[in-house]
Structure formats: structure tokens, C-alpha cells
């Protein structure tokens, strides 16, 4: 058994373990951290597939950004998770049916995929092969329309996030540094001209 294959089974075992802990852990924060581990190991699997750019993007985007959002959401909800676990046995048959359907779909896809892959594994790439370059060569030319559509989807997501979560608090006090800098003497200070008062005698000796 080659070294790569040993690594594959090692990473796959860690991935399956982490994925199981994601759904079985009692503390939702632990679940989120096990999801981080799952993302890391799947990115290691993608590197084994020589998809290095996607692997590093997975770490950058999912571990770096999406998991931070997940942790925010998990902490923001402030619900007691124990009541959510009630009825586990009641929903188990339905969940099992859904899982079976998903497994059947994956098996169908993989069986067809293995037929077309009868030529065996592709030859390993040379050491100076740049996966990023190969993606870039097709992404901005052949797949230009999906690329531009991706930007539109991101725009929709920006607007949707702002529309859903932007809250204005009327009562909050905050400083505007721009206004603070722009203030003039005449805005704050008023000099009143008046005659000097004569001294009305000594109050105390």
C-alpha cells in the first residue's frame, strides 16, 4: 500500500470521526470546532487529489470566515440546546429515510462516475504544475458568465444581509470624529460684549 493511500485512509478516518462528533457533541461550540477539523482534513484530501488551490481556499474561506460566522450564530442564539435533543428517537425513522435516500443518490452517482473513470487514476502532475494557473486559465475565459454571475450573487447576499440584520438604535450616543474635527470656534464659543460692572464696595474687609 502506497504512502499516499495510507495518508488518504488516515485523513478519511479523521474526517469521518470529526463529522460524527459534529452531530453527536453535546456542546454546540464543540460541534463547530469539530466542523473546523472536518474542513481541515477534507482540505488535506483535496491536496491529495492535487486540487491545491481549492484546498487552500477551503481553509481560507470556510475555516477562516464561515466558521467564525457559525460560532457567532451558535453564541448569538442563546437557546438551551437540551430541549432540541428531545424527540430524537421520534424523528429517527424519518432521519434514517432521508439518510438512506442521500446514500443511494451518492452510490448511483459514484457508480456511473467509476464507469467513466475506467482508465484508472490520472497521472501525477509534475512538481512545477500550478493548479491555480490552470483554474485561472479557464475561469476568466470559458466560464466568464458563471464568474460574473457569482459577483451578482455576492451582491444579492450583501444587500440581503444588510436588509435582514441592519438595526438602527435611535438612543445610542456615539462620536463622529469627522464632525469633531470640523468644528469651528464660532460653533461653540460666544463672546458677549458688556460693560464692566463697578465694584459695589468691599464685601469683606
Amino acid at each position, binding site marked *: 500500500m502506497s504512502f499516499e493511500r495510507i495518508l488518504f485512509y488516515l485523513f478519511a478516518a479523521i474526517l469521518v470521526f470529526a463529522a460524527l462528533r459534529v452531530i453527536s457533541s453535546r456542546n454546540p461550540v464543540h460541534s463547530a470546532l469539530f466542523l473546523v477539523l472536518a474542513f481541515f482534513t477534507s482540505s488535506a484530501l483535496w491536496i491529495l487529489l492535487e486540487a491545491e488551490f481549492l484546498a487552500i481556499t477551503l481553509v481560507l*474561506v470556510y475555516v477562516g470566515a464561515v466558521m467564525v460566522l457559525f460560532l457567532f450564530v451558535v453564541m448569538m442564539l442563546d437557546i438551551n440546546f437540551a430541549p432540541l435533543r428531545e424527540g430524537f428517537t421520534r424523528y429517527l425513522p424519518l432521519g434514517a429515510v432521508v439518510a438512506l435516500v442521500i446514500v443511494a443518490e451518492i452510490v448511483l452517482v459514484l457508480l456511473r462516475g467509476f464507469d467513466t473513470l475506467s482508465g484508472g487514476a490520472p497521472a501525477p502532475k509534475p*512538481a512545477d*504544475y500550478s493548479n491555480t494557473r490552470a483554474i485561472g486559465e479557464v475561469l*476568466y475565459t470559458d466560464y466568464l458568465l458563471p464568474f460574473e454571475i457569482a459577483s451578482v450573487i455576492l*451582491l444579492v447576499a450583501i444587500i440581503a444581509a444588510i436588509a435582514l440584520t441592519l438595526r438602527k438604535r435611535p438612543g445610542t450616543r456615539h462620536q463622529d470624529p469627522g464632525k469633531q474635527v470640523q468644528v469651528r470656534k464660532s460653533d461653540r464659543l460666544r463672546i458677549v460684549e458688556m460693560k464692566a460692572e463697578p465694584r459695589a464696595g468691599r464685601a469683606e474687609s
Partner: protein
Amino acid sequence: MLDNYLPILVFIAIGIAFGVGPIFAGFILGPHRPDAEKLSPYECGFEAFEDSRMAFDVRYYLVAILFILFDLEIAFLFPWAVVLDQLGWFGFWAMVVFLGILVIGFIYEWKKGALEWE
């Protein structure tokens, strides 16, 4: 190509060994005197008042999701920067259109006050 990643694998293995090794050694070599008090919640001499979990403000969510969106935008820039010498002006304008659409979103969020923290 995978040979390039062998040093990284070695780094990961040594890093895990450095992190896990001392904990494991302390677990094996250290004295074991279990006590219920050692596991009890402790907060400056009195029992913890409440659960450590608390609700975050929803504005953190907005900041996080805006960060994800622009992080994804950056992810699209990396392969573009690598192959820009081959793509020429066509690739350049493709990215200008992409960034232009996202700049619309950026102006929108700026004008809407989503970047302000009251």
C-alpha cells in the same frame, strides 16, 4: 506535485506531537488526586452566577457575513492575479466588471450605514 507538500505534512506531524506530547506526558507522569472541588465552577471565590453563554448582538452577524462575502471576492482575485499575463485585456476587463458589481454592493452598505458602529 504531492512531494512539495511533504514538508507541510512533516510540519503538521511535529506540531501535533509538540502540542499533544506534553499534555499526554503530564497526564501520565503527573500525580492523580481526583477531587470533586477541582471540577466545580469557580469564579473568584463564589459559585458562577450564570451560564457562560449569552446572546451576542445581531450586528456582529452583519459584520461577519460582510467579511465572508468580501473574503470570497478575494478568493476570486488569486487565480486572476496568477494568469493575468496570459489573459490580457479581456481578463482584465472581466475582473473589472466583477469588482464593479461588488463595488455597487460596497457603496450600498457604506451609504446604508452598515459599516458604522454606533
